[in-house]
């Protein structure tokens, strides 16, 4: 196999890490809606926490994405 081909495969594999970020962000927003529908009065105050949690989960997926970009163009 050519080294160039291996690079593309590696970059593709690296982005698989975003699956975990997708699951994480989905869980956070799903659970937020779950809680918000049970107690809508308390939902407004938790928007900040919601986005921070989503950002923290997303950051790990972004790490995988950056790694993929690095492999492809680095």
């Amino acid at each position, binding site marked *: 196999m050519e080294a160039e081909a291996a690079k593309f495969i590696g970059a593709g594999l690296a982005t698989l890490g975003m699956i975990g970020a997708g699951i994480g962000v989905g869980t956070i927003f799903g659970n937020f809606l779950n809680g918000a529908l049970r107690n809508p009065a308390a939902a407004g105050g938790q928007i*900040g926490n919601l*986005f*921070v949690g989503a950002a923290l989960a*997303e*950051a790990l997926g972004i790490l995988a*994405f*950056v790694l993929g*970009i690095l492999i492809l*163009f680095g």
Partner: protein
Amino acid sequence: MREALADPIHQFEIQKIVDLPDVTVPGLGVIDLAFTNSTLAMTVAAGAIVALMAAVTARPAVVPGRLQSVGELLFGLVDGLVDSIIGHEGRRYFAFVFTLFLFILAMNFLGLFLVFTATSQLAVTVTLAVMTILLVLGVGFARNGLGFFKLFVPSGVPWVILILVVPIEIISFLLRPVTLALRLFGNMLGGHVALKVFAGFIVSLGALAAGGGLGLFGIPGAVLALGGVVALTALEFLVAFLQAFVFTVLTCIYLNDVVNLGHGH
């Protein structure tokens, strides 16, 4: 195929607009002072903020007009954030947090209107993140002295578990500037690459359709891709605001850790 892959990255290349002579700084080596498109984007962003804020505060009225309420909305958003996360002491750090928020927001939005996004440069986001973490360290040591290290030792935890928890806390603290910089960089880079890739689909499918015959099936695909670009642009506006907001919230949380150290706020 190689060209199609390499093209979306072209928009992130640094180009020199005005080439200034290199300067040798002792201890740092040679520094290229050239005025690049990244510098231009940041200058325009900073200028836009100053112009907006000057316009907002030019004729202050008790009942805000349309323009003034924009400024009050932005001010109130960050003020409420700082107050609810850091508390009373937060007022002291408001200027830094507000500046950071406006600067990142302006750079993100200008990236969607102009050709260049300054926040898609790792150098820019790393600078912002390092600045934030240095402020957190400075405030932490100035307020708590060596008590700053209590940050890594959660109270009320048995010592057996502390052996496990303290290294984790230290590693997570060290990772803060890394994730802070990479999150903003990755989101901006990824969003703009996706926009360019979808825009490329329109052109290549349109070219396919222009060939006639079976290629005419490319037309619905091109229309779909155009819809995708419109939807992605709308999403990018949300992301541009959200990433500036998240950077600000995390800055507040990190500051709160050291400002209210020990008395869990």
